[in-house]
């Protein structure tokens, strides 16, 4: 890797989920904002340790579900009441027929909510981005096995190659490495 390439950040490896959790608490206390921990599974309590709140995903999914509901209502009622009412067994077209429309409205609400949930998750998580600077760190891929990684980005205002490296080593980080873009 040529040294002329831009520095993306510093990576450190920790020996367990517990060590990573307490390290994350310390990094948060230091006031860093552009950093993340990379783990093989979601570590319980890490959101609080990193100072992250509840994911906003649910709000978006609510809107998606609402859209599905409205589309469902429009899809079943416009053809049935306006375009071409089909009289089957003399069943009326008024408020009493409402329940007969519920199943399709319900299914469309679920369908739209599910697609919104997955689509928004891809978007929020920046998936479909196949190349990311963190993959340039040769030890990084251990996160899918049993590695507990922390990466602090160079764009963070408090970042400094020497002082951040010392900090990561002090809080128990191993193999502290400079990651290039």
């Amino acid at each position, binding site marked *: 890797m040529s040294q002329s390439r831009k520095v993306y950040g510093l990576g450190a490896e920790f020996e367990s989920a517990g060590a990573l959790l307490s390290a994350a608490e310390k990094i948060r206390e230091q006031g860093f904002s552009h950093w993340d921990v990379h783990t093989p599974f979601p570590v319980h309590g890490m959101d609080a340790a990193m100072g992250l709140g509840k*994911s906003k995903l649910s709000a978006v999914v609510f809107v998606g579900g609402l859209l599905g509901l409205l589309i469902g209502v429009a899809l079943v009622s416009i053809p049935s009441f306006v375009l071409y009412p089909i009289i089957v067994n003399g069943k009326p077209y008024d408020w009493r027929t409402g329940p007969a429309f519920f199943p399709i409205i319900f*299914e469309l609400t679920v369908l739209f*909510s599910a697609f919104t949930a997955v689509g928004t998750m891809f978007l929020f998580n920046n998936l479909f981005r196949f190349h990311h600077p963190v993959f340039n760190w040769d030890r990084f891929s251990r996160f899918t096995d049993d590695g507990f990684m922390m990466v602090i980005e160079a764009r963070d205002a408090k970042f400094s190659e020497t002082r951040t490296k010392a900090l990561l080593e002090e809080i128990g980080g191993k193999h502290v490495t400079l990651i290039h873009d």
Partner: protein
Amino acid sequence: MSKNALSLETPADLKRPALVSHDRSISWVSHNVCDIVEAPTPKWWWLAMCITSPIALMGLICIIYQISNGVGVWGENHPNGWAWDITNFVFWIGIGHAGTLISAVLFLTRQKWRTSINRAAEAMTLFAVVCAGIFPAIHVGRVWYAWFLAPIPNTNAIWPNFRSPLLWDVFAVSTYFSVSVLFWFVGLIPDLATLRDRSKSKLARTLYGIGALGWRGGNRQWRHYEMAYLLLAGLSTPLVLSVHSIVSFDFATSIMPGWHTTIFPPYFVAGAIFGGFAMVLTIMLPAAKIFPQLNDMITENHVDKMAKIILLTGSIVGYAYLMELFVAWYGANKFESFTFFTARANVNGEGWYQWAYWIMMFCNVISPQIFWFKKMRTNYIVVFIVCQFVNVGMWFERFTIIVTSLAQDFLPSSWGHYAPSTTEILTFVGTFGIFLSLFLLFMRFLPMIAISEVKGVLPEADPHHHHPKH
């Protein structure tokens, strides 16, 4: 407080058994699950594929034969307009429900033991729904008009009847399949990343890498990922209940005796979970035998719990059968009591299909009762045999419901026997070939166990594991 006043330690005999036995490490999980995919293709796999894929091909040939000649090549004829086709459809779609129950309902109820079985059960769901979807699609006769089911007007500007349960079914099953695919894929992303990072060949790395979508396992990603997973579980739970309820509406909203009952939705849902768990065990028990490394993840404890669910849902189904008989007797509707007591149970010797009814009763109500004994629930051979009874019994349940009601309904002059044609039988056998071939492919190329979820339930994964006083 004095030192020995109160101990908060759980006594050893009350401690829960570990979810993964032998105190395995995090790395052990990824190694042993991925090893199944990475090792050279075993001989038994080719042998199994050589058996299942010709069966699948035979099924496809039967489907092509049926499409090119019309539904006349089947045994369905007046008055049995529905018979094996819809029996098979309900049978397969019901099997799918166990996968969703394991992945969604057990997730919401925080049953952590589900992590070892949910991936394979969800795969089973998808393949079962694929098999289920074949039957309603081809039983319409002229498949090229199947687009009439879509919510668009036909050439005469007539829309489908949105108040028909058959149209609800189209929406329910297609939504169910789509949401199950999403749920399954979202669960796979971190595990595909594991396979990506372990793969040695460039092709595998690229393919698994595309599937993993560049997953980086950052906590800022896990946060949204977990929320999406939770929401999908929350959405799938009412969805799975709605799907089989709507399938039961296909019958319950008609006026056929034996179909026209309000007990159908819960009875069908319980039956679906019952039959589905039997199919999960039918697949998982041989898999755990073939891959001994899975035995630490799919433990006796898991089989025991699944057998308990089979016992519970089997008893609910048994209750529904008895309640149907009670209502038929108590309701004083002549046709209803004829269907149940004569056409099905054959108390006076005039019924035609009593054998189907009594096979159903024995397989679904009597056989699972053996699971009251823990020794039986943890004996894999007994569990496997009972699961086969349940698979057979659940198929006969749908056959009984559909055929006995139609063959002997209101007027004796309009009664008619039903017998399946060879094409019909081979089509059904063929769906087993399709199902098993798809499952074999899944076992070969994708992680059978949800790696990241199993890691998450290891004691080592608890951040306070090493510091008990933290």
